[in-house]
């Protein structure tokens, strides 16, 4: 299905969700309001015509003005993809989980939490995944300072 048709469908069902649509990018993306993310995700998966049955990845991006979480979703059934983005404030990034829509989000959200500090509300088990549980800070943020030591070991 065409990218614009998906956007229209989202506009139709959840009118206030979309902030920005970029069709010119290599992978066209839709920026949506964080509080509507879960509803949009449900719509994308549930709507027969769209049928996004697969969440490929969740990536955090640390921009100077915001932390953006990027969702790459895909439909095997209809062979089309979509990129969703949500902008979150840098000091307190919080967004609803999509774990209840795609199970794949479980580990991806844990990873984004681990490396960017984005809190996914409603996630059943939001722990660090790659780093040790007692690690401080979120290393993929641009302003991350490497700790000189970890448990007395020089890094």
């Amino acid at each position, binding site marked *: 299905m065409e990218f614009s048709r998906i956007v229209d469908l989202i506009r139709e069902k959840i009118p206030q969700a979309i902030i920005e649509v970029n069709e010119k*990018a*290599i*992978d066209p993306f839709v920026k949506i309001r964080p509080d509507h993310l879960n509803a949009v995700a449900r719509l994308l998966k549930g709507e027969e015509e769209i049928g996004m*049955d*697969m*969440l*490929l*990845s969740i*990536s955090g*991006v*640390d921009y100077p003005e915001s932390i953006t979480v*990027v969702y*790459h979703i895909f439909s*095997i059934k209809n*062979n089309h993809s979509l*990129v969703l983005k949500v902008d979150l404030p840098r000091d307190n990034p919080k967004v609803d989980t999509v774990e209840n829509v*795609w*199970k*794949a989000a*479980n*580990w991806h959200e844990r990873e984004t939490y681990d*490396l960017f500090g984005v809190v996914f509300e409603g996630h059943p088990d939001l722990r*660090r*995944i*790659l*780093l*040790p549980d007692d690690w401080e800070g979120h*290393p*993929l943020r641009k302003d991350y300072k490497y700790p000189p030591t970890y448990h007395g070991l020089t890094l």
Partner: protein
Amino acid sequence: MKGRDWKEYDELNVNMGPQHPSTHGVLRLLLKTDGEIVKEAIPHIGYLHRSIEKIAEKISYTQFIPYTDRLDYLAAMNNNLAYTLTVEKLMGIEVPERAQYIRVIMAELNRIASHLVAIGTFGLDLGVVTPFFYAFREREYILDLFEMCCGARLTYNYMRIGGVANDLPPGFMDRLKDFLDYFVPRVEEYNQLMSFNKIFIERTAGIGVLPADVAKNYGVTGPNLRGSGVKWDLRKNLPYCIYPRFEFNIPVGTGMVGKVGDSWDRYWVRVQEMLESVKIIRQAMEQIPGGDIRAKLPRLIKPPVGEVFFRAENPRGELGFYIISDGSPSPYRLKIRAPSFCNLSVFEEISRDWMIADLVAILGSLDIVLGEIDR
């Protein structure tokens, strides 16, 4: 145990790994067991975390290619290919024909090598040692071929943005042909020794069934998804490179000896995929043209501002790169969508209420590589 119900004590927590022979590296599973039955198996990862994504933000696009070798270290060529294709897509580079063919040959050879390790170690997990040696014997020939091309045997660093590093050395095609002729009858050997061995089937058929909808829900890709009966292969369905020019089938799990999506199906898909790869290589060998092996590019690669997500069919599933460029010589953000990462996340779901021995079989059939899970 005064005053308490003894049933409170019948669960034993066991740590499987990070140093355990069949966790394929440094995976740690926390098992909650009731006798031999595993009630819950929780994977703990991150023991091999090398912060490759952070490193990528500090180095140039070309310098990152060797790091991709170290993701899924059993399929370094495929990782190289996926990464270079991503950057090429971002920059809109046309790759010369000959380089495209060389890339496909390398990627498919590496797919065979990777699947050989997968089925060999799967045998080890089930206690049959000999096929492992047979698989490594065949893999050795492939590694020799790679060594001819780039001098390395594990981390090749062979692909370049816009082409490949070197042209094929003289004599390569003959040796490749010899290898293919040698290899195809060997697969029959594995089938006799493993695939249709009664004990092997007893140990894998109907074990760790992964239904197609669960697989999709967890983002499982590659042979594991196909083992669940979903006919989905990026090489066919979202073609990249020159794959549309080749004839090949997509093997899917049919539940031949058990249920669709069991461990045996996942294993069997890999065995058949090796033969399909041989077909692709044979066709590529016939069609390969002469000419350049690399597109003309500036020394310092500076992609335009923008972002791109691209994924390619790796032996273990769909390897995706998400690159955000701010126009500088190094990526602003580089995210790796590792197939094993998603494939492992489904493990907790399909490993409940199996025995410890089955757990090993399920884990082996998922064929994970910790290098790309932990990154």
